[in-house]
Each structure stands twice: as structure tokens, then as C-alpha cells.
């Protein structure tokens, strides 16, 4: 924890030094203080809180939907040979589409509103979960599965006894990737059409030349991403305590 703080503090000091020594002009690199002031200013006017809230809400809803569907589809594909033969070629093809290619289409179908952004984020969250979890389910040690069967376990009971605990680590890393992907898709969606949210704030700041706000938003995105990732860390601790 303390060791991990060394590099950010050093970066902050270096940043301040560069500004103080005028190594880079201020219109290119705002001072740490001015970034802080930009944040205070925006939040005093009640704008920053809304942007943060709406973006976080979009990510959480999209991530929840995408990763839940991802887990269900992964179970079907990973556990049943028929499910795999039926679905994995199609899903593989859809995954091959660069996900940002969906943005214009979603905009057209669902309008530039909440739905389109949430769907986009859900798509982004779906694939990491689906890919890691279905792969892990397929590779659960067949000897353990057989041992479960030998002791009279089958169907859902076998799933609870062997397969689910065996894939817990993959579920966690799938969720981690999915969350990172959700933030990525949030920004992409908001950059391309939004009137609120951190992505919108990025576009707006660029157009108005407010480099301090740009820095502020980038830092905020990093902090928010890290904070939501910590939630997954809590889930991980809980799951590994039971099944680690």
C-alpha cells in the first residue's frame, strides 16, 4: 500500500516541478493546483457530480447486464457439447467485430440515449466474461468431475460441487477484464454522442480548450476505474475464502 504510493507521489512532484520550471507551457500542461481548482469549480456548480454519477451508473448497469448474460452463455457453451457446437462459432464471429463498430448502429437503433450506451457497455462486458469462463468450464479437471459423478452427483448438484468452485478464479479475472472494458466502452459511447458524463466532459473540454478539465477527467476516470475494481477485489476475497 505505502510502497504503491511512491510512484504516484513522485509523478505528482515531477509534474509540479515541470510546471514551476516552465519546461512545458501552461496551455499544454496545467499545474496540479489548476486541475484541482477546475474540479472544485465544476463541482461547486453542481456539474461534476452529475457527470460522475451518470457515467458510473451507466458502467454499473451495463457491466451487470453484460457480465450476467456472459456467465449464463458461458455456462451453456462450457458445459454442453451441443451448446458449444451451436453457439461458439457465431459468438466467435461476433467477437471478431471490433466492438466500436457497433456504436453507429446502436445510435441509429436505440437513439443517442441511455439505452444505446448501456447496451454498448454490456457488449463490452459480455465478451471477456464469456471467453474466460466458458474456456475455464471446458477445462475443469475431468477426473474431478468423474469423482463427483462416482459419488452420485449430477446436474446442478455436480455443478455446485465441482465446476463452479473450479472456475471461481476465472470468473474473477473475467469480471475484472469486463469492468475495465466497460469503462472503455463508456468513454467511447460518451465521446460519440452524449450530453452528460465524463466522456462528454472530455469532448467539451477539448472543444473549449480547457486542458485543466481534460486532465481532471482523465484522472477521475482512473480513480473511478480503480475504485470499482476494488469492489471486484472484495468479491474475490469473499469467493476465494469459500472456494480458494
Amino acid at each position, binding site marked *: 500500500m505505502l510502497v504503491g504510493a511512491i510512484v504516484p507521489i513522485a509523478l505528482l512532484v515531477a509534474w509540479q516541478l515541470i510546471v514551476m520550471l516552465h519546461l512545458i507551457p501552461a496551455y499544454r500542461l496545467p499545474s496540479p493546483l489548476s486541475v484541482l481548482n477546475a474540479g472544485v469549480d465544476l463541482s461547486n456548480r453542481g456539474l461534476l457530480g452529475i457527470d460522475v454519477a451518470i457515467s458510473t451508473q451507466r458502467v454499473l448497469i451495463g457491466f451487470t447486464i453484460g457480465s450476467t448474460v456472459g456467465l449464463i452463455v458461458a455456462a451453456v457453451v462450457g458445459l454442453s457439447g451441443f451448446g458449444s457446437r451451436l453457439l461458439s462459432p457465431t459468438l466467435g464471429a461476433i467477437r471478431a467485430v471490433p466492438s466500436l463498430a457497433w456504436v453507429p448502429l446502436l445510435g441509429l437503433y436505440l437513439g443517442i440515449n441511455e439505452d444505446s450506451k448501456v447496451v454498448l457497455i454490456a457488449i463490452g462486458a459480455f465478451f471477456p466474461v464469456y471467453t474466460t469462463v466458458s474456456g475455464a468450464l471446458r477445462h475443469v479437471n475431468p477426473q474431478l468431475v468423474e469423482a463427483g459423478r462416482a459419488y452420485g452427483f449430477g446436474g446442478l448438484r455436480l455443478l455446485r460441487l*465441482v465446476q463452479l468452485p473450479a472456475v471461481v478464479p476465472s470468473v474473477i479475472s473475467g469480471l475484472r477484464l469486463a469492468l475495465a472494458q466497460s469503462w472503455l466502452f463508456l468513454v467511447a459511447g460518451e465521446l460519440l454522442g452524449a450530453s452528460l458524463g465524463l466522456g462528454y466532459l472530455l469532448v467539451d473540454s477539448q472543444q473549449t480548450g480547457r486542458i485543466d478539465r481534460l486532465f481532471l477527467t482523465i484522472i477521475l476516470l482512473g480513480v473511478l476505474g480503480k475504485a470499482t475494481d476494488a469492489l471486484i477485489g472484495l468479491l474475490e476475497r469473499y469467493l476465494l475464502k469459500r472456494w480458494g
Partner: protein
Amino acid sequence: MRLDAVARSFDGTRNVLRDINLDIAPGEIVALIGASGSGKSTLLRQVSGLDRPDAGTVTIDGTPLVGVDQRCAVAFQEPRLLPWRSVAHNVEVGLPRGIGRAHGRARVAELLELVQLSDSAHLRPSQISGGMAQRAALARALARGPGVLLLDEPFGALDALTRLTMQDLLLEIHAAVPATILFVTHDVEEALYLADRVVLLGVESGYPPHSGAVIRSVVPVPGTRPRDRARSSLSHLRASLLEGLGVPTHHPAHTF
């Protein structure tokens, strides 16, 4: 338990078992020996219902086997413990269904005591030795109080001393509740000490290796248990079984 003309082959061409006929009386202990790869584990899998023979039938108590039979309990060649469960919770997996919680816990504690693992009950499989894991797997198999106990090299990973203790333990359990036991071993000594009959599995001489193993011989072991481990009267049996395994003894039998 009866095996009637049981055969199993893989990939259509590789015959592993061919025409296996074996009758085992209730409460009998039968040792299965044979060279590595001769199909001992495969034969056990047919009896446990985990695998289905290509031909022939397995019947237990007069009823043919369909799928995994709850009257059987298996201890595999590998311990196959679930790595995320403690030793005690792994043994719990073997309990018969519908047993009450408290009753089940008491039974697990009793079994762990029996295989001398009470002190390690809370440890994970990765934290115990190979021999301890094998004992845990044995406890798991015993947990359901099975009518038929199928053991694939149950004492293979144990050190010599624990091995003897566990052999005696198995006999004690058997004396108390006489299950039918079919066990695989590489150890002729062990087979002669534990079993009523020793079954030698192997490819008949003069046949190609992929023609499938048959029962080469069934050797009744004289004497009632508990037996003296150093009985010299069995030395001729020992020599002939070793010979059957392809280990030429070169010694006159009586020097054993």
C-alpha cells in the same frame, strides 16, 4: 457381483479387456493384479458404472448395472480430492444422500479418526502429503458404507509402515461390516495378505498386445484372516503370481 463376458475397447481397435468372466461372492475380498496398462483401472470403471462395457454385463445383487451405482464406492488411483475443500469436507462428499447434518458430521469425524487424519481435518489437499490424500480418499469411499468397495491401488502412495496399518484397518472395517471388496494392487504381498482370491489380468501368451487382456488366472489364497504376513507356505503362490506379472523369479520358490 458378477461380470459376464465383459469387453471394452478404445478407438474401435485397441482392445483393452476381452471376455472377462468373474463371480464375486458378497463379502469377498478380491485382489486384481496385472502389469501396468493391462486394464485393471478400466475393469474397475466397468464395475463402478463410470464406464460402460462394449459387450457383456455387470450385475450386482442380481440387478444389471445402469450408470453409476450407489451401492458402489470408488477410491481412484489418484486421490482426486477437491482442492478448494478441506479434508473433512472432501470426506463429506462420500456420505450417502439424505443423511442428517449432525449424523453426517459425526460419521466424517469417525472416519477421519479411523484413517488417522483427525488432526488434518481442516487442511486443504494441497497442504497434505500424497499418502494423507490417499487416506482421505479412502475415508471418502468408506463414508457411504458401501456394499461394494472398489479400490484402485488404495495404498500405492503410502510409506511401508502406514501401508501395513492401513491394510489392517481395511481388514478391521471388513470384519465389522463385510462389504465386497475389489481392489487393484501392484504388490503381490499385499494381495496375498488381504484377499480371498487373487485375479491376474493380462494378455494371453501368443496373442498380440492389442487383443485385450483376459483373466489369466484366479488364485484362491488359503488360510483365514488375519494372516501371518511371513507365511512361508505361500511362497509358491507368490512366485507363480510374480511369474504371471512377467517378473521371472529365478529362485527356487522356498528361498522366498
